[in-house]
């Protein structure tokens, strides 16, 4: 089943601002990263998915349902973590999440049980009876995540879940999101303007820019095809390049480095063999994993 499918989705706000234009994308269940700069249309897409906005044109489907037709049914199966502060400071986390669980249609006792379960899963247990106003930013983000989990949704929409967190907090939050996506049996859509963050935990990556789709693909497909071996020798770079070319390896130069696409483990042997035969001092031989960012950067520059 397709998790999210849009077809020529366009949203133009009242003031004539085009937030999304002609976005067509289909995403499979799993952990999905939605990346784009601020103002790229990520939050608009989330609100369209929740049925809080109606598209100007085009179609949208979530979990096989159309949010423009049956928004309550869609929202019942979605958990949403907003980007901004959304926690009343004078309630305790347990009270707040119990209440929100009831707002999602859980019976009273179930809501209370699931609220403390959700708080346990995000790593807040002892603190849950203290007022939220005294929590650290990291704890608040966890409470926001717990309220999105309390009604056991099939899809989590996380809008900038690492917002305002320190590096350790970011890692912990990302690890938590990854665990939810892999062990809890629900799909997760993570929004971020930091590509480096989401690419670590996602199966699928959707990049939008200025309301347009930049690229949507499986993250493995994006990176595996571009793995490269970087070879550096102290001298005889030319000779090595010629030798490798003679071995039918598509070699390219980048400064003092020779770059060889990594086909399989045999590539290592071929390069090492060539270096040994020429008796060159090998400085380094390492695998350069292309960061997804470079893919987008290259693509964007070719656009321009």
């Amino acid at each position: 089943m397709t998790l999210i499918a849009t077809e020529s989705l366009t949203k133009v706000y009242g003031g004539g601002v085009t937030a999304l234009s002609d976005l067509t994308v289909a995403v499979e269940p799993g952990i999905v990263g939605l990346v784009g700069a601020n103002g790229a249309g990520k939050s608009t897409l989330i609100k369209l998915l929740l049925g809080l906005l109606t598209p100007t044109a085009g179609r949208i489907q979530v979990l096989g349902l159309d949010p423009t037709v049956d928004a309550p049914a869609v929202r019942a199966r979605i958990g949403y973590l907003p980007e901004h502060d959304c926690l009343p400071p004078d309630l305790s986390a347990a009270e707040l999440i119990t209440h929100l669980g009831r707002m999602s249609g859980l019976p009273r006792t179930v809501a209370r049980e699931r609220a403390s379960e959700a708080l346990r899963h995000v790593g807040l247990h002892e603190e849950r009876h203290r007022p939220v106003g005294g929590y650290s930013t990291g704890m608040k983000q966890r409470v926001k995540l717990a309220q999105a989990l309390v009604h056991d949704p099939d899809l989590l929409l996380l809008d900038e879940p690492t917002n305002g967190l320190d590096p350790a907090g970011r890692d912990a939050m990302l690890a938590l999101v990854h665990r939810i996506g892999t062990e809890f049996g629900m799909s997760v859509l993570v929004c971020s303007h930091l590509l480096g963050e989401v690419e670590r935990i996602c199966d699928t990556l959707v990049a939008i820019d200025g309301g347009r789709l930049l690229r949507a693909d499986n993250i493995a497909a994006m990176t595996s095809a571009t793995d490269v071996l970087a070879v550096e020798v102290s001298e005889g770079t030319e000779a090595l390049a010629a030798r490798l070319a003679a071995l039918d390896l598509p070699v390219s130069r980048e400064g003092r480095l020779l770059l060889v696409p990594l086909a399989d483990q045999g590539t290592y042997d071929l390069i090492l063999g060539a270096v040994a035969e020429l008796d060159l001092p090998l400085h380094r031989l390492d695998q350069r994993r292309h960061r997804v960012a470079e893919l987008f950067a290259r693509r964007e520059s070719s656009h321009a």
Partner: protein
Amino acid sequence: MPEPTGVIHDIGYQRYTGPRLGRRQVVGALYLHGVRTVFGLGRSAKAKIFPWLVIGIVGMVAAAVTAIRAQVGEVVMTYAQFADAMSWLVIFFVAVAAPELVSRDLRSGVLPLYFSRPLPRTDYPLAKLLALVTGLWLLLGGPQLLMFLGGAFTADGMRGVWDELLDLLPGLLYAGLWAVVFASVGLLVASLTGKRAFAAGGIVAVFLMTTPIVGVLSILPSQTANQLAGVVSPPTLVQGVGLWAMRDLLITDPDGGGPDLGPFGPVYALVAVALVAACVALLLARYRKVAAR
């Protein structure tokens, strides 16, 4: 060797397969939560002070009236007059309860958490409005019930109790009218701002600033203006409707005539209905805007 007890198992994440309640129960839960909020229940002690102070005063007045009637046999005020007499306290009660119901949520930004849930976006303001109406009605109706119980025990026979009840029911209806008008105006004002102090000030201003206009209109040389003066202020508007519908319950002193409505009684009723309708429509429009943000 005894079996180890108290072992903690990490049972991992459990999916929920139980029942999920429908819209009616969810709105009911939000409504009850709202009623509790109006009286400061489930809130800090600080939030309880003002509501219960007002309830205390209202209750004491009712107890005094009941006691005087039981001892002296004189009816100090009818049930309907009681609501009139308490109008100032009702205004202050609304000024505290309405911001507590809606401004807090606006301020803390919690609304996206409501609107991302199945609840249709009209249900949130309607549940809050209903909660405030209920709270105000209980505030005015509860003491009337106290007065009724006092009156019923001192009444002579079932006949007297029945007469008492016939007096009570219009009083409760009149209290309902107060509650509906004041709640819809108060909640609309409170929903415009996230700052509770501003909301409270705004509510008091709307109810009190219009009173001088009534005063000016009622001394104009035109008799029509005098008779319609009460329309422009919510408290006098409600009193006007009461005077039109049950004059003899509100004016017990045969000499003091009270405000003269002339033939415009129905106008008061229509304006009251239109005011409530407009406030509810604006409230819904306000939340349509808030939800899309």
